[in-house]
């Protein structure tokens, strides 16, 4: 087989809806001979042939949060669910990258918030919803309440030939994954060939994005070292309440916007303070991000392009603006 750049095989195209991110896992399987043969080979090794599908990332709903930065509570979350349900092409999967709920010291209150989260996310008309905890879900009780409702805080599963890994970097109270989970991760990945497409989803960034704002994972380097041999790794996370894209080595790290309020750009803002709610422009901080990674058919280069499109008034009228973007993802 000809030596093709394997990184080009998994095309993760992320289209940020401002309220979440739609990803399309589109391995260029439809493409010709050599690539198709590679996918067959993967299929034999991984147990399942990679076939194109799309999925959504939602993050940081903070169900139960009530405060000036977002007096609308769960409205953005509910709107996101409606939008996902109205997408012309139903996604296979929704990944929720933590802070499903806002913490409460009263267990009953926190429990009610978790139930409300499950009620709203239960309206998602998708076959599969997978979550990881954020520190507001699991930081105070080591993940006990989270596990009562959602079982494990870290796990993995395979979907259409892509290996998804859920990592928990919150329930030890500190921003860390911890030695047990690292050992588990090594074991979990052992059966995969280096070319296997892997999507890691977690709450906090696995690198030092802004340590003074607690935007880091102290043993994130250890996680990335375990993942280093793998050639097709994408990391999705939340926590920072803004969209972000970093390329570290050959791994792309994407953050989704939150469903509650936004944080400012850490490069520009003096302090970590939510961007104030503006009732005249309630979606002012929402926007659309289109990410094209290794667009099939072009020379395989290790690049990604991002387009940030601020939502216009059209966005207020509902899904139309979004569908426009989705119809033409190569804008």
């Amino acid at each position, binding site marked *: 087989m000809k030596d093709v750049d394997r990184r080009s095989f998994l095309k993760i195209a992320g289209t940020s809806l401002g309220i979440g991110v739609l990803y399309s896992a589109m391995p260029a399987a439809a493409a010709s001979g050599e690539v198709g043969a590679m996918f067959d080979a993967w299929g034999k090794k991984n147990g399942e042939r990679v076939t194109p599908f799309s999925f959504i990332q939602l993050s940081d709903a903070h169900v139960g949060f009530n405060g000036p930065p977002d007096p609308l509570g769960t409205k953005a979350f509910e709107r996101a669910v409606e939008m996902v349900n109205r997408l012309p092409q139903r996604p296979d999967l929704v990944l929720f990258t933590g802070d499903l709920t*806002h*913490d*409460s*010291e009263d267990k009953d209150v926190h429990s009610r918030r978790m139930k409300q989260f499950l009620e709203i996310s239960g309206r998602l008309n998708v076959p599969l919803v997978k979550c990881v905890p954020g*520190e507001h879900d699991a*930081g*105070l009780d080591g993940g006990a309440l989270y596990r009562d409702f959602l079982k494990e805080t870290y796990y993995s599963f395979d979907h259409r030939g892509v290996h998804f890994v859920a990592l928990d970097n*919150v329930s030890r*109270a*500190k*921003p860390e994954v911890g030695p047990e989970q690292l050992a588990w991760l090594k074991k979990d990945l052992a059966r995969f060939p280096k070319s296997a497409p892997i999507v890691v989803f977690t709450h906090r960034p696995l*690198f*030092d994005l802004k*340590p*003074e*704002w*607690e935007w*880091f994972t*102290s043993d994130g*380097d250890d996680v*990335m070292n375990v993942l280093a041999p793998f050639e097709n790794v994408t990391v999705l996370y939340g926590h920072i309440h803004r969209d972000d*894209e*970093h*390329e*570290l*080595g050959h791994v792309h790290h994407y953050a989704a916007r939150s469903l509650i309020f936004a944080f400012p750009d850490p490069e520009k803002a003096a302090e*970590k303070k939510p961007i104030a709610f503006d009732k005249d422009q309630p979606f002012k901080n929402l926007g659309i991000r289109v990410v094209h990674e290794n667009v099939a058919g072009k020379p395989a280069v290790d690049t*990604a*392009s*991002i387009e940030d499109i601020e939502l216009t008034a059209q966005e207020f009228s509902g899904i139309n603006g979004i569908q426009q973007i989705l119809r033409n993802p190569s804008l």
Partner: protein
Amino acid sequence: MIRSNLLKYSLAATLPVTLMIVLTFVAPRAARADDGPRVIEITAKRFGFSPNQITLKKGETVKLRLTTEDVTHGFFMRALKIDEEIDPGKTTEITLTPQTAGTFLTICDHFCGANHGNMNMKIVVE
């Protein structure tokens, strides 16, 4: 788009400041400043530190004595290589000799409740 790599990050974290930090855990006792490095007492309480700013001199060795009035808190500053826990009923001591001037935002990185995300203080080195 911002591009970087892990190597750059780890270098960035270690280059600007070189410090000697000695950590010990001892039972609470009165601060004694007369026969050793200057001692600075810092108290953690949800969701802040008291005092919330301290000023150190470049090259001066100081001892920080950290206690908490309520739950476990963290004490974290990447560039100063400080990463400690402050547990109830214990005193966490940090001896440091800052070599670089600057203002270092030090955070609680042990989740402690609703306003945990804003629990921080400044270490100013002149």
